[in-house]
């Protein structure tokens, strides 16, 4: 048991100490105003303030505002009041924040811990050479040769958190579609006059209720198809993080992987635990970084999942470099078939980021006429830049 801090004799009194404690809490990320100090002093007059446990509980209820802060508070209290005056200025936050599902707060007490959890972009153990998020360079990393890959080595929770933010923005860019028609709605912006008239009949022509109407949202839905064949390995990290983020940000999004065959990964990526999601994904992606059959995979998609999940309110996002062994006709055939369902097709090609890139890969050349958008994407930044393009789509 630590003993109660002894303050210097020239210390001006309890009010100043409380102010010092509030400053200490502020240093540690709690958002407190001047008012709280007053309330805290007031609260201490209602309890036996000489008992440290009582004081701790009282101050806890005054100074904390969410579950994270409540969990952090005891440590902060101890470091100020209980250790002989040695005031820690920073608490060591845990690397994995305890996210309770039942407490939902933007006041994440552990933001600093997330940002400090490690380097984000060196899959090769950090010898300083390989930055996998460089602009369109094929870089040598020692991960390329591993055929059976554990995706957890490739993608980190921090990436997913970052990707989640981008995916949220992309989702919002796609979501803001309004129908021109107006429908009855509980919280509409216009009065639904026809309903007013009809309902007023029941009350002798006096309108009581004011039914409203509004333009319903016609949300677009993202369906992402990601190529994880050998030639794409360097970029997989970014794309998989993006997919994981997308799944977590948008409940209606859908995701698939393909190399030599097509796998639906939506369910796996929706796992609440980001790392476990990747572990499940690793199991699904047997043959990861092998050859690629783009045309076959797209055909499979168009004839199976596409018929169920793709409609005119879908954006199909293909993440691939377009290196295929089959003929270009196959790929254009598959795209034509997909387009017949009324969806938009976006192709994001990491190689397009290269300065002198020409879509000479035969498959890519065959696909070009059928795309609504063809863009470079090899970093999360590129994906973020898509936001403005998607709003115009």
């Amino acid at each position: 048991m630590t003993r109660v801090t002894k303050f210097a004799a020239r210390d001006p009194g309890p009010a100043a100490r409380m102010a010092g404690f509030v400053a200490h809490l502020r240093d540690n990320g709690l958002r407190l105003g001047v008012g709280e100090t007053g309330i805290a002093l007031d609260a201490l007059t209602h309890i036996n303030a000489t008992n440290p446990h009582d004081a701790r509980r009282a101050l806890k209820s005054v100074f904390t505002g969410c579950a994270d802060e409540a969990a952090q508070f005891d440590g902060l209290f101890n470091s100020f009041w209980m250790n002989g005056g040695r005031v820690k200025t920073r608490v060591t936050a845990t690397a994995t924040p305890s996210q309770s599902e039942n407490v939902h707060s933007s006041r994440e007490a552990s933001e600093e811990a997330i940002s400090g959890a490690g380097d984000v972009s060196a899959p090769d153990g950090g010898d300083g050479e390989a930055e996998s998020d460089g602009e369109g360079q094929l870089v040598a990393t020692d991960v390329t040769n591993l055929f059976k890959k554990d995706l957890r080595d490739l993608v980190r929770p921090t990436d997913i958190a970052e990707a989640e933010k981008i995916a949220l923005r992309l989702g919002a860019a796609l979501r803001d579609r309004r129908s021109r028609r107006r429908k009855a709605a509980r919280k509409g912006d216009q009065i639904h006059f026809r309903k007013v008239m009809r309902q007023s009949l029941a009350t002798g022509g006096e309108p009581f209720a004011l039914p409203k109407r509004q333009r319903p949202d016609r949300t677009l839905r993202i369906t992402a198809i990601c190529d994880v064949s050998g030639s794409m390995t360097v970029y997989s990290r970014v794309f998989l993080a993006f997919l994981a983020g997308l799944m977590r940000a948008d409940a209606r999004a859908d995701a698939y992987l393909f190399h030599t065959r097509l796998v639906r990964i939506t369910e796996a990526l929706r796992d609440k635990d980001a790392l476990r999601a990747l572990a499940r994904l690793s199991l699904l992606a047997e043959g990861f970084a092998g050859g690629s059959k783009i045309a076959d995979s797209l055909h499979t998609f168009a004839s199976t999942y596409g018929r169920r999940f793709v409609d005119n309110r879908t954006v199909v996002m293909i993440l691939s470099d377009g290196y295929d062994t089959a003929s270009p006709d196959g790929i254009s055939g598959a795209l034509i078939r997909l387009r017949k369902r009324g969806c938009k097709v976006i192709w994001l090609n990491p190689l397009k980021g290269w300065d002198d890139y020409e879509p000479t890969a035969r498959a890519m050349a065959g696909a070009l006429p059928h795309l609504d958008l063809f863009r470079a994407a090899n970093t999360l930044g590129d994906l973020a830049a898509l936001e403005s393009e998607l709003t115009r789509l």
Partner: protein
Amino acid sequence: MTWKTLQTAMAEQGYIASGDLAMALHLSLSLGRPLLVEGAAGVGKTEVARVLAAVQETQLIRLQCYEGLDAAQAIYEWNYQRQLLAIRAASEDGETGKTVEARIFSDEFLLERPLLKAIRQDKAPVLLIDEIDRADEEFEAYLLEILSEFQVTIPEMGTITATTRPMVILTANGTRDLSDALRRRCLYAHVPYPDLETELSILVTRYPDITDRLCAQIVGFVQALRKQELEKKPGIAEMLDFAAALMGLGVADLTEDPTVLQATLTTLLKTQTDRDAIPTEIAQRLAGKAA
């Protein structure tokens, strides 16, 4: 009253409050500030208010929040139908416009909703604003005004100031993020799942005639179950249902009959995936450990 006596008084009413919660309630009462209680579903957040009302021997006024809740349903509403009837009747009696107007915008035609009702009581009631995170953000703004001023302005009648200050308890379980303004205006208490001893005493308080052995088994089992990967972890309410089910079936030992245990799991696990996640073998293993 100190927080200890409050804790004891609540225990007498059958609610075992943790020290943190009792202190927060005590301060909320003595400082006259609203208390925000957060925690998982089924840990007894709503129950806090009910018990507090019982301890204070006062009325509990409850406002259940939901999406689309608006001021009319939460604060007050004019009884339009009656007003209309009154107008029709008045025109037949030949009453003048002025007197009719004064009459139809009086207390008689005002429908009190929970928030207005709470500030017009003779004895300060406990006002429970349940699941505030389900209500819209606009409503939160209304609420902030009432919680800081304790007065309601009705354009036709003027401002109604609180005769007594109700003791306000807000509960939330994370449907939506609450605004910082609301969090700052309230004292805060987070109610976690209870630890072993607390849960044991809760169970004994509710079912005094339960055997010690079964009691320990039930609580141990439920605590172990909460450590499993579940979508919806069983709360205290579920634990009590489970105990009631077992006692109703006359089970004396949790491990004695796997089929009964599996059948009674319906009281604890409320989704299909969770049922699938705990097959008979796992349930038996957990029960065996708890025994």
